[in-house]
């Protein structure tokens, strides 16, 4: 699908949310804590492909999407869109980027203004960018409605008159209004029932093929990610732990977290019956105070002393293009010589943070 032209390049992206220091903190001179939502993420998206960004809640996948679109101000790092640095764009350049890169949000109930008609919602981007007159905009709205599987006659209806799946179609039509090249799809189907979810996934695939779109598909549902993606990046606690071609990630995962994640998913098949899952223990540690070394070491069944002492880089493993942030991919690493970590002891270390694990 891809013609190997890099459309988007993310390099060392960080987004930290500073917490307001209380008066007591100031008096005592305590350091201000920050939530490290995204902490050094790098990846590329090639022209015409779908990159799946997958992870559990609180891993920073949505923040990554918002930050690379400059909807949130990045703490550090760089994003290049078609070769230009997004964060350094000014005026007309930024406006052009805003036209070429769009976003579709998760919740079709809160992402549409209830007081605007479907037509007004879809053509609002045209108004913002001052494109076309009223008559042309209305025609464009009708055309887009038909494009996403609704009917032109619904142009004057309000969001409450549509079902969840239909609203998500309106959200997609709005994202298409400016003929973008790149769309960030932030959990676009997770609020929908499975039968409707399948309709929307098919629509997204059709649109990609016809319009040559490039997608960043953010989701927590591994089956959906496998279905739609060409390549996948797996996030854990603000970092990408593994990335690579979709089949390699799902059939031969190199990072223990990816493996555990895949094992946990219940398959809709009779062979699933009574399957014992060696479930990942404990909760995700707090992103305020992530574990030293490899962030996954507090829950990893293969953790050794080296994992606590050293932060892993990313290493080639498995097939070409597959990269993992685990020492186990490096044959000569001192990991293999170090002692296994006592997981129970590690649990005690992380205990204070387990309570805050959910966001």
């Amino acid at each position: 699908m891809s013609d190997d032209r890099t459309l988007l390049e993310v390099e060392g992206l960080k987004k930290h949310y500073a917490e307001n220091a209380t008066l007591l903190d100031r008096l005592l001179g305590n350091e201000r804590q920050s939530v490290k939502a995204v902490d050094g993420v790098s990846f590329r998206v090639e022209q015409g492909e779908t990159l799946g960004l997958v992870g559990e809640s609180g891993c920073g996948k949505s923040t990554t999407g918002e930050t690379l679109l400059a909807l949130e101000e990045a703490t550090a790092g760089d994003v290049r869109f078609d070769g230009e640095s997004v964060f350094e764009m000014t005026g007309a350049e930024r406006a052009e980027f805003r036209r070429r890169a769009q976003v579709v949000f998760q919740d079709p109930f809160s992402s549409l203004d209830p007081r605007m008609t479907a037509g007004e919602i879809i053509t609002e981007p045209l108004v913002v960018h001052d494109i076309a007159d009223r008559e042309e905009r209305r025609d464009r709205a009708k055309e887009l409605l038909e494009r996403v599987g609704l009917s032109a006659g619904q142009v004057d209806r309000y969001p409450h008159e549509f079902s969840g799946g239909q609203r998500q179609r309106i959200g997609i039509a709005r994202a298409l209004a400016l003929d973008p090249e790149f769309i960030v799809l932030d959990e676009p189907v997770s609020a929908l029932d499975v039968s409707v979810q399948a309709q929307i996934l098919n629509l997204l695939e059709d649109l990609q093929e016809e319009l040559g779109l490039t997608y960043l598909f953010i989701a927590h549902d591994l089956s959906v990610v496998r279905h739609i993606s060409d390549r996948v990046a797996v996030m854990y606690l603000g970092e990408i732990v593994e990335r690579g071609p979709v089949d390699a990630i799902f059939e031969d995962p190199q990072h223990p977290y990816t493996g555990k994640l895949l094992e946990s998913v219940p398959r809709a098949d009779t062979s699933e019956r009574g399957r014992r899952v060696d479930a990942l223990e404990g909760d995700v540690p707090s992103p305020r105070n992530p574990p030293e070394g490899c962030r996954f070491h507090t829950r990893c069944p293969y953790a050794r002393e080296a994992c606590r002492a050293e932060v892993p880089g990313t290493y080639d493993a498995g097939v070409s293009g597959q990269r993992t942030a685990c020492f186990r991919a490096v044959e000569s690493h001192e990991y293999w010589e170090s002692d296994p970590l006592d997981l129970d002891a590690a649990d005690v270390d992380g205990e204070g943070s387990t309570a805050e694990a959910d966001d």
Partner: protein
Amino acid sequence: MARDLLRVEDLSTRFFTGEGQVNAVESVSFDVREGEILGIVGESGSGKSVTALSLVDLVESPGRVTAGQVWLRNPDLAEEFPDAADGEFVDLRELPKGLRRSLRGPTFSMIFQDPMSSFNPSITVGEQIAEAVEVQRRAKANPRSTRSRTQGYGLASYLVDGVVPGRDYTEDASHERAVELLEQVGIPDPAERADEYPHEFSGGMLQRAMIAQALAGEPDLLVADEPTTALDVTIQAQILELLRDIQAERDMSIVLITHDLGVIARMCDRVGVMYAGEIVERGTLEDVFDDPVHPYTQGLIGSIPDLDDPAPRLQPIEGNVPSLLDSEMDERCYFADRCPKAMRDCLEPPGEREAGGEEHAARCVLVDHEYDELDALPDDYFEPEGGDR
């Protein structure tokens, strides 16, 4: 084969809202055997949660169970209330209200989707579980007094509370039992965690605590309504393991309600598929997953992307979940407007038919005869006249 613990017959639940009557559950029948996990699967608005609430008698106004019977195996009660009895079974809907309530705990227990909103944020987790233990203990002593703190003890109690705010309702023994229960559901350092408040627990831990609370009365039947839907997939795996372990240890029955066919496949022996308030197909896991006869079940299975063997294209069900407003529901197969195989016969409400196999049944005419194109309804049959599509 295990004996039946519960037999539900033609249960209907209606909601009488300002917009009209909503037929949330429509003549639902199934049975729950001793020591089995029965799955009920459906999409949002299919009536699966209301079915659960109807079972444990927790449907609240404007809703009401309007018809049907819920037969519980309980020889003692059957003897005491011969009018409501059928052999060893007793019809719960015919029992006095107070007695019905006293069955909640020792007979039924329920866990919900969202543990955060199921706990009181201002009382420690241990205290809330101890309270459940206390209620059960008092209920055993006197079945008529099963009130909990949240229901209050009248004006006198209210005044006393004003003066002595920290008054304890639970005894030390109940508190110890609560810690024991927390340990059984796999909460580390249960004695310390018992003194923490719900916001100090993670979602997975709080779901464990809710299970501990549900176990306080040692129920015969646990009704679990989407118990893992709010959780991440790795935490879901933990909770499902826990549910299966406690089910096996206590030989309880579980009714597991979910929208996730994967969860059903991992956990259940038998399954019912709900659509528009009806169970449209039921049978063993193999019947429903490998040999579905109802086009809705087939569509549901075709809609799910396969994790291990991705199909190039999904086969979704067209259209949307129907309205359950009585005034908008025609007397016909409720799935006909979305069904790729709708025929003239489908304009009559289909009864349930046996579909081969001891357990397998479906509400669909296709059980009796093959799809016949000559008999098919025109594609636009259900489009509103003068509609815009």
